[in-house]
């Protein structure tokens, strides 16, 4: 026996690669859910490590709310070109046009909640039996109890009672027809781990993660990007601020933070010192204490 352990980033990386390969080995038709955020970008890097020089044994799936930051979409298309893998896009606009969901009204209207329907439809349409996502257990307490292989019924529901025990490094991916599994390879990573990994691997990110000047309004104490998607009225005052985004969601529900972190080193020291959790900047989590838990049970992550 020796007295040295793997460095933490090497260990987390090796675990994630292991999980991705388990997905490839155990499922017929997996997919990688790609949001354009740093966590799913990290997953793409890990998939390269798991499967190159071969192709990924799954396509990337992006649920496009139509309210994305333009920088995210540009990044996505450039990345797909670089890696040469297949991209499937599910449009929330299609779900609206088909009358499956109704657009929210009012000042805090967001398409964030609507995307669950588009996601489940996309899964059903393509018959995906496993969907890889970038959720992490440190994000929030409903996620702290999530398995790495999380079985969902055909309604996408997460049932805390039906969770399978996960022992050692053995993942049970057996499912019935109609069920699918959500798989979270970076479950054990923290926000800081992801940033340190991105720095180590020199991974390029969408520019909105870094400080830039932007027109914002202040709403419910948070800075929101001024955009045609945000319902604004005369009370909203648009001002220019130096900001960056800590998560990449819809323009209508992702708050910016005032920041002068122009480089990744600045971001890492900002996060190390920061005392607000990442999801604290998500309006959608603020609705109620159990907000995330409810959405997760409904098929959101």
């Amino acid at each position, binding site marked *: 026996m020796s007295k040295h352990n793997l460095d933490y980033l090497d260990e987390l990386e090796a675990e994630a690669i292991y999980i991705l390969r388990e997905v490839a080995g155990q499922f017929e038709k997996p997919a990688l859910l790609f949001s354009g955020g740093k966590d799913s970008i990290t997953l793409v890097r890990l998939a390269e490590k798991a499967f190159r020089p071969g192709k990924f044994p799954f396509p990337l799936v992006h649920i496009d709310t139509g309210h994305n930051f333009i920088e995210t979409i540009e990044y996505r298309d450039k990345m797909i070109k670089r890696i040469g893998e297949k991209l499937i896009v599910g449009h929330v606009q299609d779900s609206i046009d088909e009358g499956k969901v109704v657009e929210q009204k009012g000042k805090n209207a967001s398409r964030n909640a609507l995307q669950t329907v588009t996601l489940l439809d996309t899964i059903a349409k393509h018959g995906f039996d496993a969907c890889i996502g970038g959720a992490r257990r440190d994000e929030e307490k409903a996620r*702290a109890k999530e398995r790495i292989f999380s079985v969902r019924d055909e309604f996408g529901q997460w049932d805390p009672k039906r969770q399978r*025990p996960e022992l050692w490094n053995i993942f049970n991916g057996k499912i019935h027809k109609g069920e699918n599994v959500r798989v979270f390879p970076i479950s054990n990573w923290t926000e800081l781990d992801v940033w340190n990994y991105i720095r180590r691997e020199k991974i390029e990110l969408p520019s909105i993660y870094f400080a830039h000047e932007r027109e914002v309004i202040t709403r419910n104490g948070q800075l929101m990007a001024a955009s045609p998607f945000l319902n604004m009225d005369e009370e909203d005052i648009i001002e220019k601020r130096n900001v960056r985004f800590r998560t990449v969601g819809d323009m209508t529900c992702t708050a910016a933070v005032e920041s002068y972190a122009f480089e990744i080193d600045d971001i890492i020291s900002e996060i190390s010192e920061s005392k607000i959790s990442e999801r604290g900047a998500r309006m959608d989590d603020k609705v109620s204490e159990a907000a995330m838990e409810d959405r997760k049970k409904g098929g959101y992550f």
Partner: protein
Amino acid sequence: MDILKFITAGSVDDGKSTLIGRLLYDSESILADQLEALHSSNRKNDDGSVDLAILTDGLKAEREQGITIDVAYKYFQTEKRKFIIADTPGHIQYTRNMVTGASNANLAIILIDARKGVIEQTIRHSYLVSLLGIQQVVVCINKMDMVEFSEAIYETIVNDYKALAYKVGLTNVKYIPVSALKGDNIVHASSNMKWYEGKSLLPFLETIELEVDDSTAHARFPVQWVVRPQTEELHDYRGYAGRVSSGSFKVNDKVTVLPSGFHSTIEKIELLDQEPEEAVAGMSVTIHLKDEIDISRGDVLVNTEYQPEVSQLIEADLCWMDTRALDPTLTYFIQHNSKVTRCKIREILYKVNINTLEKEFNEDFKLNDIGRIIIKTADPLAFDLYQNNKANGGAIIIDSRTNVTVGALMLRAVVED
């Protein structure tokens, strides 16, 4: 910096949630928005201080359904180390939860209430820690503030525990007197217990040495996936993708593929654009062999000189994890690393009463039961005895009707047919 994974065994009554809360709080691992929620909560301790147990509170679904999900994971880090806590409910019916949490832990913290000493629950927790092969144990004797920080009481409990540790086979045990509620000896040394000269809990967790099994003798590489690009320029490329589960592999090592028994030599080890000379336990890599042999998912590469057991008839410790009792007439699936095959429980040798550690002989094997069985598998398994090599000695049983994981197996011996 490395990662220490540990479990905490104890019930809410022992102050387990408070202990975890205290570790997070005093190591400043709680973020401002969580802290705000903590301070604005109505739940306070008797003296008006913040109830740290809130930090490990359950989900709405758990409260509504009166259940507890088996394991909640908590993350924190200090300058010296990263920590992952598997927080498992310690109530009697949750043996399966503790087994699950313990399967991936390097260390266990066992909590004892200083007013109660070693009780039935302590026996249960210690037995499970030993069964799952966690070598490093820290016994935290908690609520020392309620016994006037008495050294004599601490000493009595330590002596009682030593007898128990011997009985269940735990050899590496450390004792720390603490008060999670008041913060004594958790992160900072207690001024109330000057008689205690050892480290406080967090400094101890930060500095304990972790052992990695990287001996050649335990070199095991379960193949998960075969990388075959089949493009023009990579026509002959064939790499075996997997994670070294234990031991170490080097380029030019002679290896055997099990269960087929073919031999070859390692030509190259790859990790994307890197070509390391050696792959040690925990590393995910792609291995190339000098000979073209038929290898697929479920096979395992081992060092030719040190081969594991290969058998279809195995004696094992079983923990049953499903509400439906074990049915010896039924065919189940067994999953051992990347290998899945069918199996039957051929014989129940005995069960263990985990409160008294006495053997029991009856036919039924229900939720949370633990005992020794003989299992027969459809295909041979290439495994190590769990007591020698955890990474290649554990397996799960899956119910073929529900696809649910219903049992945890610690493989203990080959049975001659």
